[in-house]
Each structure stands twice: as structure tokens, then as C-alpha cells.
């Protein structure tokens, strides 16, 4: 915005506006990455608790799998 303004550094309301317009673009990609990460953690936890067929896990989670309606045995 007003590049020639002597008051540009922090004192001008419009100058702050520049931050607000550039910030979200940088935020989006890291935001998407963390969304994918959290979704993957959630899906992994769900798979291990509810669907992995190792005998130990199956026995430990047996009652929950039946009661939650997960395919079991």
C-alpha cells in the first residue's frame, strides 16, 4: 500500500492490512498438512483399535468390536 508514507511502519492501519492479506496464503499449506496428519493419526488409531486382525489386538478389543458393529472374526 502507501510505500512512500513516512508513518508506514506499524502506525498505519492499512499497513497492518497487508499482513492480513498475505498471511492466509502461507497458512493454507501448513494447515492442510496438519489436517492430513491429524486425519491419518485418527484413522490409524481407529484401524488398530477396531480392525487390525492380530490375535492379541482382536482378543483385547473383542467386546468393543462386536458392540460397535465392526466386522469381527
Amino acid at each position: 500500500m502507501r510505500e512512500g508514507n513516512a508513518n508506514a511502519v506499524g502506525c498505519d492501519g492499512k499497513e497492518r492490512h497487508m499482513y492480513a492479506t498475505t498471511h492466509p496464503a502461507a497458512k493454507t499449506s501448513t494447515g492442510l498438512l496438519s489436517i492430513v496428519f491429524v486425519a491419518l493419526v485418527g484413522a490409524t488409531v481407529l484401524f488398530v483399535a477396531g480392525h487390525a486382525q492380530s490375535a492379541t489386538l482382536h482378543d483385547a478389543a473383542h467386546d468393543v468390536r462386536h458392540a460397535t458393529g465392526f466386522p469381527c472374526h
Partner: protein
Amino acid sequence: MIQRMLAGGLIAGFAAGLLAALLHFAFMQELILLGEDYETGVLVHFAGAGDAPAEPGHSHAAGEAADDHGGNGDGGGASRNVLTVLFTGLTYSGYGLLLMAGFALAAQLGQEVRARDGLLWGLAGYAAFHLAPAMGLPPELPGSAAADLTDRQIWYFGTVIATGAALALFAFGRGFVPALAAGALLAAPHVIGAPRPDEFYGVAPPELAGEFVARALGIGFVAWAALGWIAGQLWAKAPA
């Protein structure tokens, strides 16, 4: 943002899981143990007909076996119940994290999730993860017959994904085409049909299985509603 999602998902998940576990012990566990008695032959369904032998012995044997399950027998009793609480908590934490990721994705796309929206998201999650799959693969009482496990898992995950996508399209799509696609996605798994066993050779009584399914769906409803509500509150009130 990642902390907001992780903390919110885990807190909401374990809280809803604890509620689900309480309801499990109040409504489900006795049916599971009873189903297992039929599964292992301790009890025999329809004992008066067919070739079931030694009828007078049944009631006595049943009493003994039921005690074994409830006590500290082979892997039963307290440790079994602790594992149930733990795995219910884990399962709902997985749901909670997925829900938080959904909230964040909606926010990225310009649809900020307000606290009261959480309940709707929870009910949608219930429909995708419990209700729609249960229409083809009802929760199994031990002692029920079922088709090949891999086939059932494929159908289950396909149904969850299709139903979830359909509900998202209904909620966020604009116009006729997304709604039409959503309807098709919602119907597709049921048109294809869930895998069924070749024969119905389940040994548990259908009356018991019906009760089991209805209770499982009821508990899922309550737990998912709680999960969505808590997650919505945590999401909306946490600093971004």
C-alpha cells in the same frame, strides 16, 4: 492449529468413549456373555427341537458358565472390562481426531464450524460409521453367522466413505448435481449389497441378536452425539 485438533479430538474422544463404555456395561456386556454361551455350546438355542441332547443339564451348566465369565477366569472379568474401556476410548479418540480434521478442513474452505454445529457433525459421523454400515452388516452378537471377514471389511469401509462423502455433499454442495451425486453415493453400497453368509447357521437366538443390534445402534447414537457436541465446544472455544 494442530494442537487444537489433537487436544480437542483426544479429549472429546475419550470423554465420549467413557460414556460409550458405561452404556456398554449397562446394556451390552450381558448380551455378549449370553451370546458366547450359545456360541460355545454352554446354552443351546431351541433345545426342545432337533437333536439337542440332555436337556435337564442345560440350566445348571448355563449357571456355571455365566459365573466363569463374570469372575476371574480365562482372560475374563476385570481385565476384560478394563480392556473394553481402553479400546472404547481409543475407538472414539480415532473418531474424535477425524472429526477435528473435518472441522479444520471445513474452516480452510471457508465454512467455520460453530460450537452448536458439532452435534450435527456428530450425528453425520454416526450415520456414516454406524447406521449405514449396520443396514448391511448389523452388529454381530457372538454366535451369529457372517460372511468372509475381508469381504465384510471392504464393504464396511466402502460404505463409511461413500456415506461420509454423500453427507458432506448434501451439507456443503450447491445445486442439483451435488445433491444427485450425494443420493447416488448414499444408495450405492446398499444397491451393491453387503456380503452375506452362504447359510444362516448362527447358534444365538434371533431375539437376542435383535436386542443386541438395537442397543448397539442406540449407544452409538448417544456416544456420537456426545462426541460431536463436546468436539464442537472445544473447537469453537479453543484459540485458533
